[in-house]
C-alpha cells in the first residue's frame, strides 16, 4: 500500500492556493512574505514528486534528478527573495512606520 502521486500533488496544490489566498487577503507585508514562501515550497513538493515519478517510469536515466536540481535553484531564489523582500519592507518602514501595505500607497520618499 503506497501513497499515489496524486495525493502529493493535491497537498502541493492546496498549500499553493492557501499561500495565494494569503497573499491576496492579508495586508501585513511580513505575512505576505510568509505566504509567498509557502507558495514556493508547495511548488518544490510538486517538482520533487514529479521528478520521482519520471525516474520510476524509466524515461531515460533512472537516476534522473532534474526535478531535484530545479528545487535547489528554487531554494536559492527563495533565500534571495526573502532577504531582499525584508530589506524592502524595512526600507519602507523607515519612511513610514507601518507594515500595512494599504497604507504604503505612495513611493515618494
Amino acid at each position: 500500500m503506497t501513497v499515489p502521486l496524486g495525493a502529493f500533488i493535491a497537498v502541493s496544490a492546496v498549500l499553493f492556493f492557501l499561500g495565494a489566498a494569503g497573499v491576496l487577503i492579508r495586508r501585513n507585508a511580513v505575512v505576505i512574505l510568509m505566504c509567498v514562501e509557502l507558495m514556493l515550497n508547495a511548488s518544490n513538493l510538486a517538482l520533487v514528486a514529479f521528478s520521482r515519478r519520471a525516474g520510476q517510469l524509466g524515461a531515460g536515466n533512472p537516476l534522473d534528478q532534474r526535478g531535484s536540481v530545479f528545487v535547489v535553484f528554487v531554494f536559492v531564489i527563495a533565500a534571495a527573495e526573502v532577504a531582499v523582500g525584508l530589506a524592502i519592507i524595512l526600507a519602507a518602514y523607515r519612511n513610514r512606520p507601518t507594515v500595512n501595505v494599504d497604507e504604503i500607497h505612495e513611493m515618494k520618499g
Partner: protein
Amino acid sequence: MFDFLEPFFFAVFSLGIIGAGVCVVMLRRITAQALLMALTFASMAGMFLLLGAETIALFQVLIYVGAITILILFGVMFTKQDDRGYALFFQKQTPWAAAFTLVIAVPVVFLAFSFKDAITPSGKGGDLIPLAGSLFTDYAFPFEIASVLLLAALVGAIVLVKRDEQ
C-alpha cells in the same frame, strides 16, 4: 507488515502542512504565524523524505526551517506590528480574492488526484550522488549564476537597509 506506515506518515505530514498553512493565512498573531510557517516547512521536509529525496529534505531543514524562519522573525522584530483590529474578513478585496482563488483551486486540486501512479522510494542509496552529479556537470553554469544571484541579493539587501550617513 509495516505497509501502513507510509500512508500514516503521509497523513501526519499533510495534516501538518495544510493545518499550519491555514493558520499562517488566518491567524493574527505574527510570531505564532512565523513559527507555524516553520512547522509547515518541517512537515514538508518529512514529505520529501517520504518521496525519497533525502538531500532535498536536508536542505529544506537547513534553509527553510533554519534560515528563512529566523530571517522572517527578525523582520517581525524590526517592525512594529500594530495590533489594531483592521478587519481581516471584511476588507473589500477579501470576497474577490477568496472567490478567485477557489475558482482556480478547486479544479486544480481535483485534477491532481488523476495522477494514480504509485510512488515507491527508490531504496538505492539515496539521492545525494545522482543529485550532485547532475548539479555539478550538466547544471554547473546555472549553479555559478545562482551564486552570483545570491551575491547580488546580499549586496542589495545591505544597500537597501543601510542608513545614509549625514
